[in-house]
Every structure is written in C-alpha cells, then in structure tokens.
C-alpha cells in the first residue's frame, strides 16, 4: 500500500467557482490538449447517434480535469477521441501540438476495467509498454519495479492479475499506463467498479501519485465528490447530445485528501454541481420520454 502521509490540510480557503465559456480562446494557445468543434456520430440501428456535439475545450499542461455528466452523455466517447481510439466526425483533437490520428504512446489510458494481460505477471504487465516502445528488457523491468514500489505492490510483483483484488488490479493498470511516461493520462471511470472503501483509498493514492508524475490528467467519473476532490477543473456535460455545459474551477488547496469531503465550502460547491446535473438528468429523461 502506498504510504499516505499528507500534510494536514491548510485551513479551508473560500472556493472559487468560475463559470468560464466552454470554448477555446486564443489566450490558451499552449494548451496540451485542444479539442476544437469536435463532433462524433455513431451509426446505430435506429439511425445516427450524435455522441459528442461540437465540443471545444482546452486542458493546460499539468492540469487535472474531470468530466462529469449523466450516463450516455458522451464522456467516454470524448475521452476516446482524446486517446485516438475514436475518430472525429467533425472538428479535431490536438495533443501536444499534433493531431490525434490514432493511439500514441505519449497519451496513456486507464479504463473502468483494468484490462491487464492475464498471461503476464504484474511486473511484465507494467513492463509491456516500455518493451513495446523498444526499451531493453532489463530497462523495462527496472522501470516496472520502480512503479511497483510506487503503487505499493512489491510483494505481488510476480503474481498473475487474477490473483489480485480489483483495487490492486486497477493500481497495476495505472502503473502500466504510467510506464510509458505519458504526457497525458486519460482515465475513464477508473474507480467505478470498486467498493466505496477501496475507491477512497485509490483516490488518495492517485492524489499522491499525481504529485510525482507531472502528467496532465483527464478523468471521467459519475461521482461528483471524486471529481471535486481530485480536480483543478470540473467540466459538466449536458444530457446527450454531448455538450459541455459548465466549466468549473475548483480553487481548493493542495495537497488534498478525502478529509476535504466534509468541508462546508466544499459542500456548497458540490450542491451547485448536483443541481446542475440533476436538471440535466431530468432533461435527458424528458427527452427520452418525448422520443418514445
């Protein structure tokens, strides 16, 4: 287990809650992720589905940005487009100055399921990326061992994934994505399948890890607590067709820990987010009612 030795929280500062326009502005030319008028359309049996509708957003280097919104609003699709797993129908996605034409090793991804290679030990799972990128076996394994220590699984280095708990597997998946030293780490509900206790531990682990890796993180979640706890910015998406409704800055002191979840200022911010999401959820429901 990663030692969790956070500094005690500084006295809570008033939270900033900024509603920025959800569009890219020229002032943010050095954004590491730049999504411009992105639309993604799927062919479904009942016609075309607009999963992402003219979304523009910028993420600055080192930022931690969360995407929240009702189920089916296009969070995963938007994230997959940033990963190069989904091609734009219109618009474009630029990461580190280059267009995303396919998966790239400087963009890492952690999925809701760990998707570890079942035939590889923890060590070799983590070493997979560096090996694939042409590092020597010795060097790849050395990098893996460092990461294993960082996620606190040294005792399980040679274990096969199916012998680990869900939380441990997800930690290995995070380490595996980090092994390629990505500039951008995309996470799609990475703790969604975990129980509440494990999830809380994983959130603390991620906060701790983030201080060491200096990667830009885009994090999809259903859990508004999780989004506020972890992020510098929370993007709230509208019920499908997927659009970004609000862009909230979370001005919360770091380092943070889950202790913040009972802070009154934090609760006020959470209430605002929940109201927005609830209104959106209702809209989505009414839209569905209207269609059927």
């Amino acid at each position, binding site marked *: 287990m990663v030692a969790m030795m956070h500094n005690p929280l500084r006295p809570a500062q008033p939270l900033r809650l900024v509603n920025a326009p959800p569009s890219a502005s020229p002032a943010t030319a050095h954004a590491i992720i730049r999504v411009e008028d992105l639309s993604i359309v799927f062919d479904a049996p009942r016609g075309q589905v607009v999963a992402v509708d003219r979304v523009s957003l910028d993420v600055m280097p080192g930022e931690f940005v969360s995407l929240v919104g009702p189920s089916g609003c296009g969070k995963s699709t938007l994230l997959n487009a940033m*990963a190069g797993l989904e091609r734009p129908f219109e618009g474009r996605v630029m990461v580190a100055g280059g267009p995303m034409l396919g998966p790239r090793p400087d963009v*890492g991804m952690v999925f809701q399921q760990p998707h*570890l290679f079942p035939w*590889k030990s923890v060590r070799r799972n983590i070493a997979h*990326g560096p090996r*694939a990128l042409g590092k020597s076996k010795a060097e790849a394994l050395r990098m893996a061992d460092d990461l294993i220590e960082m996620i606190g699984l040294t005792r399980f280095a040679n274990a096969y994934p199916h012998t680990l708990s869900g939380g441990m597997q997800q930690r290995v*998946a995070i380490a595996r994505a980090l092994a*390629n030293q990505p500039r951008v780490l995309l996470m799609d509900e990475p703790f969604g399948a975990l129980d509440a206790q494990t999830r809380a531990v994983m959130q603390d682990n991620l906060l701790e890890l983030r201080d060491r890796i200096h990667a830009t993180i885009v994090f999809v979640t259903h859990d508004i607590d999780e989004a506020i706890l972890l992020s510098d910015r929370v993007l709230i998406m509208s019920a499908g067709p997927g659009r970004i409704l609000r862009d909230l800055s979370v001005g919360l002191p770091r380092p943070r820990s889950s202790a913040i979840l009972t802070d009154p200022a934090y609760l006020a911010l959470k209430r605002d987010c929940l109201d927005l999401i609830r209104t959106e959820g209702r809209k989505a429901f009414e839209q569905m009612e209207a269609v059927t």
Partner: protein
Amino acid sequence: MSTGRHDPANAVRRLSVLVGVLSVPAFVGLWELVARSRIVNAVLFPPPSTVAVAVLDWIHSGQFFGDVSASLFRVTAGFAIGATAGIVLGILTGEFRLISSLLSPLFHILRPIPPIAFVPIVILWFGLSETGKLFLVVWGVFFTVWLATHIGVQKVDRGLIRAALMLGTPRRQMLSEIVLLGALPYIVVGLRTAVSISFYTLVAAELAGAFAGIVYRIEIAQQNMQTGQVMGGLAALGLLSFVADRSFAAISERAVWWR
C-alpha cells in the same frame, strides 16, 4: 457425518473401487473362458492368450517398431502441419475481414465433408505415397483447429486490444501475443479435438494402402485370417491414442499457464 465402518455410503464406495480394479481382469478372464469353451469359433474370437502371443511375435519379428514409428510419424507430422496452418489461418481470418471474406466461405464448404471421403481422390493424386497419408491427416486436423482459432480470435477481449493499442504495441506483436494468447484457451480445445481426429484419419490413410503402420499390419493380418494379430493391432492403436490424448490433456492444462 459418520465415518464408521458400517456407514453404507462408505461401503458402497469401497465396493466400487474394488469392482473398478477387477473389472478389466475379470473381463479378460471371462473372454479367455468363453473363447476356450468352444461356444464361439476360436479362429474368429481368439482368447487373450493367443492375442498376447501374436503381439510378442509381432515384436520379435522386428516389424513392430517399424509399424509403430510409421504410424506415429504420420500422426505427429500431420498434426503439427495441420495445427500450425490452422492456427495461422485462424488468426488471419479472425483478425482481417477481407481475408475472412476470401477464405471462410470455402473453408465452411469443405469442413463438413468427412476427411475419409477424400481417400479416393488422395490416391489419384498421390498414389500410395507418404505425402497422400500426411495430406489426409493434415486435412482432418486443419479445419478443426482453424475454426477453433477463428472463433477464439473473435472472442478476444476488445478491452485487452485497446489497452495494448494505448501502450504502443506494434502490429506484429498485437497478432503474435495479444490475439494469439487471448485466443489460446479456445485454440487448446480445438487442438485436443484434433488429436482424436488425427487418429481417425490415420486409419483411413493406412487402410487405403501402405507399406508399414499399425493399421496396415491389422489389414494384412485380416487377409491372413490372423485374428489374434488383428486384435493385438487394435490394442496397440488404442493404447497409442489413449497415451496421446492423456499427454495432450496434461499439456493443455499447462498451455494456458496463467490460470
């Protein structure tokens, strides 16, 4: 639960073990008795002792080794070629739409034809050569392994593929590691089925005409009315395919090593 001596369940269990151990000897003994009692024709239904003598003669004549190695070679070489081709083409058709559209319809037409039905055409093409015999075994093994691999490849967890893509896995490694190992549990099942198929097709191949082999020996013995030798050959073939199946079962448990 009682574990006492008079527990009826326990008694039944011990009795079944005893019956199990005595079953084959009792059967052989009965066969010996019936065959010697002249109730049946001893030429057509020789006692086990006669069969044993025939097998010993076979070994002493020096033909046994040649026959067994000829059959073993056909089965193993045919299996190896057919299985390799099946796995490679299964991965290609499972992974690439275009290759699948090209080959799958053809394979699905040819696959249901029993391999034995190809004996006449094989004789026309290859005569009594070894190539013809290998061809039959390869043919039988190939389709089973191909289908298992093809299905296995399509069932590979898409999440694993995406994870591998995100890590920069090169195309070649994608096929040779992620897809192959992802499909391995299916492939192993196909290979095990193919082991018994390779023996069926071996029989057909040797019956069609050969110069050595266990089934060839059985056929010669039949023509000379050496019923003991016929039965000895059957026993040897049974033993061989039993050993092959068991060793393959042991191998296949270790093949999916991460379970």
